[in-house]
């Protein structure tokens, strides 16, 4: 019965080897070919040993079989590393080191009659005339131990794929683990004396199962059509090459990992920085916090200085215990320089506009009549536009610097109070939220402009603006409803397109401020028609936390 099973295992192994050969140069294909050749050769030698006419011939084929025996574990570990993308370990030196003990074992098997470290001898003849061969010795134990060790080491990276989200990878890894554990388990049981009456090492017979498993992995689960190798490499690649700096410290503030970008930013050598205290390498002005707050780190002086937004994330184990922290360094130098330029530009423009408009208004006041009044109104409008520009700058600055946030109810009340002063003819209604909440200060620009827009263009006899707010688990929704003429579709189209051209633009800055304001605080805004006239604007923004501020001056 053993011979037909062994022949079957050779048929399956050879078929799988050919398929694997054709799959070259996919990761893992070449080592898998060697693994399958090794196990097929092992089975072949057992077949020839069992069919041998003399004891010497049987011993010869058993010795020859050791080439296959020792090829399998080395090929398996090479396959495992290459298939899972860890081929960086497969240097010539490492492969040669892995092959030293197997090569020595083959030499000892061939020369066994001279030393006895590994003996291979005739152990009798079966009823069918097959010569039985007994093997053992100290080196046999060493070789078996080495084989088991490489077997386990090879399984480890593949085990990780069992929990992969991709069905193909789960199937491939399950088939591979079945393929390698079946003969290994058989061999362990045989060496423990579990098969006393078999007469031969039944491991090669189990190769029939592993061959089917490998065939299944190749054909059914497209082992060389969907390969996980890039995934592992990609993580390392991203870590090494991403523009953001990454520093990983353990729970004792010791740096355990750092990417190139972080090393370049901080002007340190990666190898030297590893093992150093994180606080020495990363000069933060205050103890770091992991609550999502960020700190600005400036490196260098003068015009060569660069600014980094530093974020901290906590790494925890499965029980939630802190393992360490990941610091991210995001270069915001250009952003800050741009902001600085905008501020200077805005200040200069605003100052000059105000000065020039004051002069124009002075001249206008020297005359009288409708023309003078128009000039005064228009110059006031110019000043107003320049104030909007300032609001735009303040909006981004407030959002960046706003760590505490502000009370939603207080923010809405302030905005309505200002609007009531500016538009006394308009009836304002405020529907307070059921509970207060803390929101970004940047929301004030959004609300101010929406309320102003609702009141300013409302030119009917019964002018009403309603502001309502409600708070849910993580968002705040503010609705501003008016009964005015409504916002022109053209204005909304320009706003939605996100850009303007000289021929296609909105009439002012107000709606842009609303759009930018909601975007900069991760919110959104929608515009709907009110019935019978007017507009319903809904701004939805993130909630910092429920309840009001404990020490807020709103």
């Amino acid at each position: 019965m053993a011979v037909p099973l062994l022949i079957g295992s050779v048929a399956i192994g050879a078929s799988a080897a050919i398929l694997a050969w054709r799959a070259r140069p996919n990761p893992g294909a070449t080592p898998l070919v060697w693994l399958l050749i090794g196990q097929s050769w092992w089975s072949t030698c057992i077949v020839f040993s069992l069919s041998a006419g003399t004891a010497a011939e049987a011993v010869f084929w058993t010795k020859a079989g050791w080439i296959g025996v020792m090829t399998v574990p080395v090929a398996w570990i090479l396959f495992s590393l290459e298939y899972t993308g860890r081929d960086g370990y497969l240097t010539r030196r490492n492969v040669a080191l892995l092959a030293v003990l197997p090569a020595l074992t083959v030499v000892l098997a061939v020369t066994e009659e001279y030393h006895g470290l590994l003996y291979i001898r005739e152990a009798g003849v079966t009823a069918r005339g097959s010569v039985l061969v007994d093997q053992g010795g100290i080196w046999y134990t060493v070789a078996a131990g080495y084989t088991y060790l490489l077997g386990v080491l090879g399984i480890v990276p593949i085990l990780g794929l069992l929990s992969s989200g991709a069905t193909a990878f789960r199937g491939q890894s399950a088939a591979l683990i079945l393929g390698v554990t079946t003969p290994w388990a058989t061999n362990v049981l045989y060496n423990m004396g579990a098969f006393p009456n078999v007469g031969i090492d039944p491991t090669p017979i189990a190769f029939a199962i592993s061959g089917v498993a490998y065939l299944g992995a190749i054909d059914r689960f497209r082992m060389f059509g969907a390969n996980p190798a890039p995934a592992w490499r990609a993580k390392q690649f991203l870590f090494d090459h991403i523009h953001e700096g990454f520093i990983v410290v353990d729970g004792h503030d010791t740096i355990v990992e750092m990417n190139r970008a972080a090393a370049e930013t901080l002007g340190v050598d990666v190898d030297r920085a590893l093992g150093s205290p994180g606080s020495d390498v990363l000069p933060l002005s205050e103890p770091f916090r992991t609550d999502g707050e960020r700190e600005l780190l400036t490196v260098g002086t003068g015009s060569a200085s660069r600014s980094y937004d530093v974020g901290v994330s906590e790494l925890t184990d499965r029980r939630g215990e802190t393992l360490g922290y990941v610091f991210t360094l995001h270069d915001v130098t250009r952003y800050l320089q741009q902001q600085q330029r905008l501020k200077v530009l805005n200040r200069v423009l605003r100052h000059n506009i105000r000065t020039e408009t004051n002069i124009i208004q002075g001249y206008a006041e020297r005359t009288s009549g409708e023309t003078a009044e128009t000039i005064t109104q228009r110059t006031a409008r110019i000043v107003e536009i320049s104030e909007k520009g300032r609001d735009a700058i303040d909006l981004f600055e407030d959002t960046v610097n706003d760590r505490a946030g502000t009370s939603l109810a207080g923010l809405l009340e302030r905005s309505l109070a200002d609007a009531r002063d500016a538009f006394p003819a308009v009836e304002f209604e405020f529907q307070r939220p059921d509970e207060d909440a803390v929101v970004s200060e940047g929301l004030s620009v959004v609300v101010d402009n929406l309320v102003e827009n609702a009141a300013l263009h409302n030119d009917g006899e019964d002018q009403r603006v309603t502001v309502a707010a409600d708070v849910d688990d993580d968002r705040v929704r503010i609705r501003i409803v008016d009964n005015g003429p409504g916002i022109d579709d053209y204005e909304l189209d320009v706003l939605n397109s996100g850009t303007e051209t000289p021929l296609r633009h909105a009439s002012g800055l107000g709606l842009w401020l609303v759009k930018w304001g909601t975007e900069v605080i991760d919110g959104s805004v929608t515009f709907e028609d009110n019935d019978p006239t007017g507009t319903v604007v809904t701004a939805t923004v993130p909630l910092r936390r429920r309840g009001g501020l404990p020490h807020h001056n709103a």
Partner: protein
Amino acid sequence: MASKTNEPPVSTDAAVPWHADVPESVVDVGYRVRDVLTYSSTYLVFIAMIEVLTVHLVLSLPLNPAPIVVGLVTFAVYAGDRIADAADDEMSSPERSAFVTRHRTLLSVLTAITYGLAVALALTGGPIALAITLLPGGFWILYASDWLPSLGSHFKRLKRVLIVNSTIVASAWAIAVVGLPIAFAEASVTPLAAVVFVYFLVDTFVNTEIPNVRDVEADAAVGVSTLPVAFGIRRTRRILYGLDLALVAFVVIAFSVGILTAAAAAAILVGLGYALVLAWFVGRNAAPGRLAIAGEAKHLVVFALLLVFTTGI
């Protein structure tokens, strides 16, 4: 056996076809069967098995698994070659290339399984049978696969090297066809076996070069150096005449010194006469694919004659 597929070219003849009265579905099935047999080189399996049976008859060997093993290996190697050359064959054999590309996965699995079965069967014949069974696969790796060039720029696919390419093909098959039945029978290598080996070696070489005439432009385009590419069609025809005539002389000598029996010599000489006639058509025939198939079918003629001469069937 030859290394190229020999499917007939597409007919553009507007005349009423011979099968006009046959139901369309039957004709369709017939064409499909023909396509599968020719494009996958399955017909070569039968030819190869007949060649091994011819060796059995000439060497008076008992019937053994050798014909099945050679048949399985033939399918695995030739269909595998079709898969590897599908892209190169687009110019010379677009229909075959399309067929192989469409059924690539199935053919790939089938060829792997058939070679695996052949290797397993060969184990029952002992180490020499196994080695001979592995030989065509090993030669194919040297001959056609990209493995050899991958070792370095100075190693190019042997398929591209003049004479070496056809000699490797002929050697692998001659050794398998003659050696495998001997190995399975555990018979010794006799002078008669050597004569039969030389016959199959030269004959397979000739049959390998015949389809190269049709593929001369495509081979030249992809850098494969064959006799027609290197010497032109007319000189290739003369070389093939020369090889066939040399083989005739060799067979006559083998018969005259008593190595070959009269029956075997007569059958082989008739086959060689048939080969010489085919050589005349080389480069003159409008359907070179059919010419190559006719070249392979010569083994059926030799086998049939041997059966008649030796058994009186």
